[in-house]
C-alpha cells in the first residue's frame, strides 16, 4: 500500500484531503526499478482545476507509454496546506508515488493563464528547487514550460530551463533520449540544455540575450551561443487521427471542474477573430477523423464511467462531420444515462435541434459571443456575426422554448466609442424584444438576458497585439456607460449586466505582453506572499503595484502604450507560422473596419501553409 507524504494529522486538518492522495481510477503505477527517467507533470493551480485539463491527460498517457519513463502529477497545494508545508518544511510531492518533486529528472509545468505565474514560484519553492534557473544545481530537475502562455515566455523566462513551444506530442521522445544520452556520457546540465536548444521547438532562455533601447523597447534579441537558432518554430501534430490520445483518462474522486470525458474534435479555428490568440497560434485548423473520434469516445466512456461527454474545440460548428458525430453519439448513448455537452456551438437550426435532443431546454441557456455591441466594432475585431444572425438564432430558440440568453462582450477594444459601448445594452434590449414578439400564450414565462463584459487585453501573436490597453479608470468608466445605458432600456427588468474586475485585467495585460524585466515583479509579488492570483479572493492589486514600484517598472509602458508597427516584441523570435506581415495587414484592416473572410472562404495568406497540411490544403489536391 502507498505511504502518503502527509500525516493523518495534516490530512484531517485541511480542506479536501483527497486532493493530495492520488490513487485515482486509471492512475498509472510503475515499478521504479524499470524506470530511468522520472517526469513530474505540473499544473500550477488547485487539483480540481488541474484535473480538468485535457493537455495533461494527453501527455500523462503519452509519457507513461514510453519505455522506462514514469510521469507523475503535481499540483498547487491549496493555501491551507501551503502554510503547513512551509511551517513544517514538507517538500512538495508527486501524487503517484508521493515522492519529493526534487527527486524527478524533469518538472514540466503547463502554463494556461498568466495569473498562475506566482503559483509557478510556489511549486518551485515548495519543491526546494531554486526559483531562478541560473541558481539551479546539477541534479535539480530540468524545469520545462509549455502551454499557451509560452507564446510570450519572457516574463517567466528566468524561472525555466526550457520552454517547449507548441504541441507536446511531437518532441518529448527526442528530448528524453537526449537526456539519457547526456547522462550516459556524464555530461553536465549545461551540455544537456545546449543540445536541447538545438532540437525543434525548444527555447532555452539562457542562450539568448536581450538588448534594450533607451525608451525601454527591445533593440535586439539574439542567441549568445553558437549553434543556437535565432528563431524557434512551434511544434505541431499534422495528422491528429494518427497520434496519441488517452483511452483511459484519470478519474478524480472529488468533483473536478470538468467531470466528464473530453473529446477534442479538432485544433485551430478558421474564424480569424483579431483579438483571439488561440485562433492564431493553433493554426492551421486540423480535424480528427470521425472514425478516430467514435473509437475514442466509446473507449473513454467505458474506461472512466463518466456520465457526460463533451466535444471540445474552439468552434465546434466548424467541424465538418459534426452532424454525423452527433447522430452516432445520441444513438450509441441512448438509455445509458450519459449526457452530451457541446460548448462553442453556433446557434442555428441544426444546433438547436441537437441541443433539444441532448439538454433540458428549461434549464439550459443559450450563449452568444458577439464580443462587441455594434456592427462597426465587430468589423474591427473581425467577428463575423451580424445582428441578424443573433436575432434569428434567438428567434428560433425562443420559439423552441428557451428563455435564457447569455451574451459575451469585450470592453475597451481599439477605436471603441461611446456609441459602441452603449450598443452592448441596445443589442441586449433587441434580444429581449425578440422574445416578446412571441404571442403571450406561447411564451415560456419571462426572458432573461445576461450580458457579461470582460476587458480587452491585447495578446501576443494577434492582429491587435499593437493596441494600447485602457487604464483601470477608463475600463471602469466604460463599464458604467454600459450599465447606465442598460438602465434606460425598455425591458431593463429582463436584462442583467456583469463585468469583470478591471484590476486583474490590468495585471493580466502586463504579464501578457511583458518582457524579461517583468520576472523581477513576479518574484517580488511572490516574496510578498502572492499566490493563487487567478483566484479573486487571493489576488491583491496593491501588492502588484508595490512590486512594480520596487522593481522600478512602469505599468503603463506595458499596458496603455501604443506600440509602433516596427517595434521588436519580446515574442518575435517565435515562429508560429503566422507571419508578422499578416498580423500587420490584419491590424490595418482592423483600423479600416475591414472584415477578412475565414480560412474556408478564402485563404488570407497568414503563413500557416508552411506546416504543409490541415485546412490550408483541403479540397486542393
Amino acid at each position, binding site marked *: 500500500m502507498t505511504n502518503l507524504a502527509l500525516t*493523518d494529522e495534516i490530512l484531517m486538518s485541511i480542506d479536501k484531503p483527497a486532493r493530495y492522495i492520488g490513487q485515482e481510477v486509471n492512475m498509472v503505477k510503475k515499478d521504479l526499478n524499470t524506470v530511468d527517467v522520472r517526469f513530474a507533470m505540473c499544473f500550477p493551480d488547485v487539483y480540481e482545476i488541474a484535473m480538468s485539463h485535457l493537455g495533461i491527460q494527453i501527455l500523462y498517457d503519452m509519457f507513461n507509454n514510453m519505455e522506462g519513463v514514469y510521469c507523475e502529477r503535481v499540483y498547487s497545494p491549496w493555501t491551507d496546506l501551503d502554510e503547513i508545508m512551509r511551517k513544517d518544511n514538507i517538500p512538495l510531492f508527486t501524487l503517484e508515488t508521493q515522492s519529493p518533486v526534487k527527486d524527478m529528472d524533469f518538472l514540466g509545468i503547463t502554463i494556461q493563464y498568466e495569473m498562475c505565474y506566482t503559483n509557478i514560484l510556489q511549486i518551485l519553492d515548495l519543491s526546494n528547487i531554486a526559483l531562478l534557473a541560473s541558481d539551479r544545481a546539477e541534479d535539480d530537475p530540468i524545469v520545462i514550460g509549455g502551454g499557451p502562455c509560452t507564446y510570450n515566455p519572457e516574463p517567466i523566462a528566468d524561472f525555466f530551463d526550457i520552454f517547449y513551444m507548441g504541441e507536446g506530442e511531437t518532441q518529448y521522445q527526442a528530448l528524453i533520449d537526449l537526456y539519457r544520452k547526456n547522462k550516459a556520457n556524464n555530461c553536465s546540465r549545461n551540455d544537456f540544455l545546449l543540445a536541447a536548444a538545438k532540437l525543434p521547438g525548444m527555447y532555452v532562455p539562457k542562450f539568448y540575450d536581450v538588448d534594450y533601447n533607451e525608451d525601454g523597447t527591445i533593440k535586439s534579441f539574439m542567441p549568445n551561443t553558437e549553434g543556437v537558432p535565432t528563431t524557434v518554430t512551434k511544434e505541431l501534430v499534422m495528422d491528429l487521427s494518427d497520434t496519441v490520445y488517452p483511452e483511459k483518462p484519470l478519474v478524480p*474522486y472529488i468533483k473536478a471542474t470538468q467531470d466528464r470525458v473530453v473529446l477534442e474534435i479538432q485544433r485551430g479555428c478558421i474564424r480569424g477573430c483579431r483579438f483571439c490568440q488561440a485562433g492564431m497560434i493553433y493554426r492551421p485548423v486540423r480535424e480528427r477523423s470521425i472514425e478516430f473520434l467514435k473509437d475514442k469516445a466509446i473507449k473513454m466512456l467505458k474506461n472512466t464511467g463518466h456520465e457526460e461527454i463533451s466535444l471540445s474545440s474552439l468552434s465546434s460548428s466548424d467541424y465538418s462531420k459534426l452532424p454525423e458525430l452527433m447522430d452516432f453519439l445520441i444513438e450509441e448513448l441512448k438509455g445509458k444515462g450519459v449526457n452530451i455537452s457541446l460548448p462553442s456551438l453556433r446557434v442555428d437550426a441544426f444546433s438547436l435541434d441537437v441541443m433539444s435532443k441532448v439538454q433540458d431546454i428549461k434549464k439550459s441557456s443559450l450563449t452568444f459571443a458577439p464580443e462587441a455591441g455594434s456592427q462597426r466594432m465587430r468589423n474591427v475585431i473581425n467577428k463575423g456575426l451580424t445582428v441578424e444572425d443573433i436575432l434569428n438564432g434567438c428567434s428560433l430558440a425562443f420559439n423552441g422554448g428557451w428563455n435564457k440568453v447569455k451574451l459575451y462582450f469585450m470592453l475597451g477594444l481599439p477605436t471603441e466609442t461611446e456609441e459602441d459601448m452603449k450598443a452592448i445594452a441596445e443589442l441586449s434590449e433587441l434580444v429581449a424584444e425578440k422574445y416578446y414578439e412571441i404571442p403571450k400564450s406561447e411564451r415560456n414565462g419571462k426572458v432573461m438576458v445576461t450580458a457579461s463584459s470582460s476587458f480587452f487585453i491585447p495578446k501576443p501573436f494577434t492582429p491587435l497585439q499593437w493596441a494600447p490597453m485602457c487604464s483601470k479608470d477608463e475600463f471602469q468608466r466604460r463599464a458604467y456607460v454600459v450599465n447606465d445605458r442598460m438602465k434606460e432600456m425598455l425591458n431593463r427588468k429582463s436584462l442583467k449586466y456583469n463585468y469583470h474586475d478591471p484590476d486583474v485585467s490590468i495585471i493580466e495585460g502586463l504579464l501578457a505582453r511583458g518582457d524579461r524585466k517583468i520576472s523581477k515583479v513576479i518574484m517580488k509579488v511572490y516574496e510578498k506572499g502572492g499566490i493563487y492570483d487567478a483566484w479573486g479572493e487571493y489576488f491583491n492589486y496593491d501588492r502588484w503595484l508595490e512590486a512594480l514600484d520596487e522593481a522600478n517598472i512602469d505599468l503603463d509602458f506595458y499596458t496603455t502604450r501604443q506600440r509602433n508597427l516596427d517595434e521588436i516584441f519580446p515574442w518575435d523570435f517565435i515562429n508560429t507560422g503566422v507571419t508578422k506581415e499578416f498580423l500587420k495587414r490584419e491590424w490595418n484592416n482592423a483600423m479600416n473596419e475591414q472584415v477578412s473572410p475565414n480560412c474556408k472562404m478564402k485563404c488570407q495568406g497568414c503563413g500557416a501553409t508552411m506546416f504543409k497540411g490541415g485546412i490550408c490544403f483541403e479540397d486542393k489536391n
Partner: protein
Amino acid sequence: MKIRIKFTKTGPIRYIGHLDVMRYFQKLNRRADIDVKYSAGFSPHQIMSFAAPLGVGLESYGEYVDIEVNTTISSKDAIEALNAASVEGITVTGYVKLNDSAPNAMSCVVAADYKVKIKDNYKPAASNIKEAFEEFLRQSSIVVEKATKKSVMEVDLRPLIFDAYMDDNGDFFMKLSTGSAQNLKPELVMDAFYKYLGEEMNEFALNITRLEVYGQNITKDDSGNIINTEIIPLEKFGEIIE
C-alpha cells in the same frame, strides 16, 4: 430489482468524503457494465442508497450501498466485474439480491461494529487501561455534553453502547447504536473514556475502522404480529444470486 453491495474503504481512500464515494459508485457501476436502472428525465441518475455514511478518515470493511438494476449477472461474476474496475482500497465483497419489499440500507441500520486503535503518541497515561475500560462500562450512565447546531445538550451514551471491550493488543472493539434514530460515534465513547481517566484526548489520537453494519430484521406471522426481531449484518437481508 434491488441489489445490496458490500464493500471496503481502506488505505489512502479513507480520505475520500461520503458524497465522493457516491459519485465513485455511479462511475464504477458503469465501468463494470452493471445494468443499473436510471431515473427518468433529462438528467437521468442511478437510484442509490447508502447505509450510514462513513466519516472522512475512517476505514471500513463493512460499507453498503443499495442499487436498482434492470437485469443482473450472478453475485460471483458481479463481484469480479466490479473489482476489476475498482481501485485498491475499495473492494466489493458482497452482491446480493433484496426482496422488493426490503427496506433500503439507509433506513434499517441500527448498529455498527468498530475497531479503535489509539496511535502510539496519544495513548492514555493511566495504567491498567483494560480494567479501567471495564469499570467505565460498568457505570449505569455515561452522560456527556453533545454540541448540536443550536445548543449543547446532555446525552447518556451508556444505553447506546451495545457491547465493548479492549483486547490484549490494546485495541478496542465496540458495537454502537447507529442510524438515523440514535447515532453514536466511537470517538465520542473514547473521548468520554479519556475524561473518565481524567485525561484529555487529542483529536487525532484514534484510528477507527468500521467492521460491520447491522439492520433490524423483523419477522411477522401471517396475521401481522411480530414474532421475532433480530439484529443481523445488512448483507444477510439479501440472497446470493447463483
